[in-house]
């Protein structure tokens, strides 16, 4: 039953993606700046004929609805077009860059959960204690620090001053790794390559912390406040009246219910992580999607922007689906 409902939800993503594709298509073309001008360097040297030729090659001389027809028709066949600037199929570029971004997003999410869950729980259980006050002050810092600044500070301290962590890239040049999925940590595990595992984890650490700090702060605050509310509830009182240990009261009766609002926030933060990627990837020279997209936007590389936005949209939709599924497990009143 649940499997059918989940399949239904997956299938409804198709019209959503269709809508996203159309909206993105028009919005990019509404922005000022002509890709052909940018490509030819806005120099007077380019002749009118060359410009015409390029426009024709990219179908930019056709009416918008015809261009849209080309785009959607190709997209249905799994062809997202050809990057104007990089002269490569967009799909290839995305496949090449996506794993790095996924790896950093997962790393940041894990780091933020590892930091936020214990802090959120403990500061609620020991409300107004020194630990609570310090954590909430820390959370305030975490939210306030911009990613590019934190990234640079971390690089200065750990890579330049202490020299214990790498400052950039995903893996050292002298470490061999056979790519399977493109997620280096996973690949080193799959191929049993311990030196590569260690090296890729070390590379992942600073970017993940930089990206995850703000998210950790938000999750910790939300979890703390929902734990505080739940700990005052009647069912927690009943659990105590049954003779349950404080551990069971907090970790079973309270946490299970406090996670419901927290999961929503975590789901939304995945979007924030994807957005934050662009800056952190630049700071750490991380070869991910974020930097690719920034370049594509500056160059009005329409097909590449479209492709990347589609990827972001799919990620959002899927994250929402996962959140909804988790919800049904946490809150029995909700069904898919």
């Amino acid at each position, binding site marked *: 039953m649940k499997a059918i409902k989940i399949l239904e939800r997956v299938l409804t993503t198709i019209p959503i993606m269709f809508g996203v594709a159309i909206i993105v298509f028009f919005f990019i073309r509404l922005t000022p700046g002509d890709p052909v001008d940018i490509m030819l360097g806005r120099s007077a040297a380019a002749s009118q004929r060359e410009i015409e030729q390029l426009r024709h090659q990219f179908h930019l001389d056709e009416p918008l609805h015809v261009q849209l027809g080309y785009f959607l028709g190709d997209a249905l066949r799994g062809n997202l077009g050809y990057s104007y600037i990089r002269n490569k199929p967009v799909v290839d570029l995305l496949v090449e860059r996506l794993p790095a971004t996924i790896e950093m997003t997962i790393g940041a999410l894990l780091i933020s959960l590892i930091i936020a869950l214990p802090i959120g729980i403990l500061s609620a259980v020991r409300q107004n204690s020194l630990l609570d006050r310090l954590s909430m002050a820390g959370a305030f810092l975490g939210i306030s620090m911009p990613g590019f600044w934190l990234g640079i500070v971390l690089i200065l301290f750990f890579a330049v001053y202490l020299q214990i962590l790498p400052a950039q890239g995903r893996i050292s040049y002298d470490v061999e790794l056979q790519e399977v999925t493109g997620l280096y940590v996973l690949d080193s595990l799959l191929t049993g390559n311990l030196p590569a595992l260690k090296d890729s984890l070390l590379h992942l650490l600073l970017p993940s912390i930089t990206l995850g700090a703000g998210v950790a702060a938000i999750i910790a605050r939300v979890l703390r406040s929902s734990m505080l509310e739940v700990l005052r509830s009647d*069912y927690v009182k*009943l659990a105590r009246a*049954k*003779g349950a240990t404080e551990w069971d009261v907090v970790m079973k009766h309270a946490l299970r*219910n406090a996670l419901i609002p927290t999961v929503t926030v975590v789901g939304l933060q995945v979007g924030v992580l994807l957005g934050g990627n662009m800056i952190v990837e630049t700071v750490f020279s991380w070869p991910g999607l974020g930097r690719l997209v920034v370049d594509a936007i500056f160059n009005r590389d329409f097909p590449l922007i479209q492709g990347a936005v589609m990827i972001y949209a799919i990620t959002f939709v899927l994250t929402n689906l996962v959140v909804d599924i988790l919800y049904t497990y946490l809150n*029995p*009143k909700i069904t898919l």
Partner: protein
Amino acid sequence: MTNTPLLELKNLTTVFPTRRGLVRAVADVSLSLAQGELLGIVGESGCGKSVTMLSILRLISTPGRIAAGQALFQGRDLLKLSDGAMRQIRGKDIAMVFQDPLSTLNPAFPVGEQIRESLRIHHIAQNHFAREKERVIELMSEVGISSPTDRFHEYPHQFSGGMQQRALIAIALACEPKILLADEPTTSLDVTIQAQIMDLMRRINEARGTAIVLVTHNLDLAAEFCQRIAVMYAGRLVEIGTTDQVIETPQHPYTRGLLTCIPRISAQRTRIEPIPGNVPDLANVPPGCAFAERCSEMQPICQNDLIPFFEIAPGHLVRCLRHSSATPD
């Protein structure tokens, strides 16, 4: 009834610091409960009846605390036990049924599981799942939950209010406690369900000899159910006696006030007489009798010092100076 009480409260005082000052929610309460007894604690909202129950189980949430007194259970002072020893008592020897069943059941776990937890915590069925489940189903049918095998896996929101309260009673009964503290167990239920729940509790009392403390604002309900009644006002007990003594010959003006403000269906038309005035601020209870300001029989002396209990008949205690000719207890 045996002579040694099962539970004895001695001068129990529970306080909550607030901005307005120290609220003495339970002030100097002394009370005893015999084995298998049905005791009612009656009073209006905020008079400290629920806090008294929570104090017995040491479940007062911070910043509230039990400031003084003793709570002797079979001679052992509960207030002096270690946290671990106290947990052994909670749910096993003294169990509690709360007021609002929907918010008291955990929405995230199946009802059967929540009943089973009580068994598991106190190792009633040697933590053997099949045996525990069997016992839970037994308990569920005992409290009148129909088709318990099917309902074992259902969640609280799938139960009706009456069934939720039955489930809560099943949780409380799971370890066959010696004392059941029932805090307004029927307040959120309609009258027919109320009668069924009270009937269920009476049967439990008869079948197992479980002593029950019924906390309620409903004097009629207490009169019907209990053998003895204690009346509470502004954190203090004002009158204790057998049900007959308290209902037929109420001696404290507050008890009498409560009795005259209950509407009755009878041939005679009688007016409901509300008690004039308001309950005093618990952070600032006047010296002397807390009820003095609202009392029609108040004398200047009533507001001077704390009024002691006077025993006006065997077992009938009243905190009122009109009985000062009787011997102070």
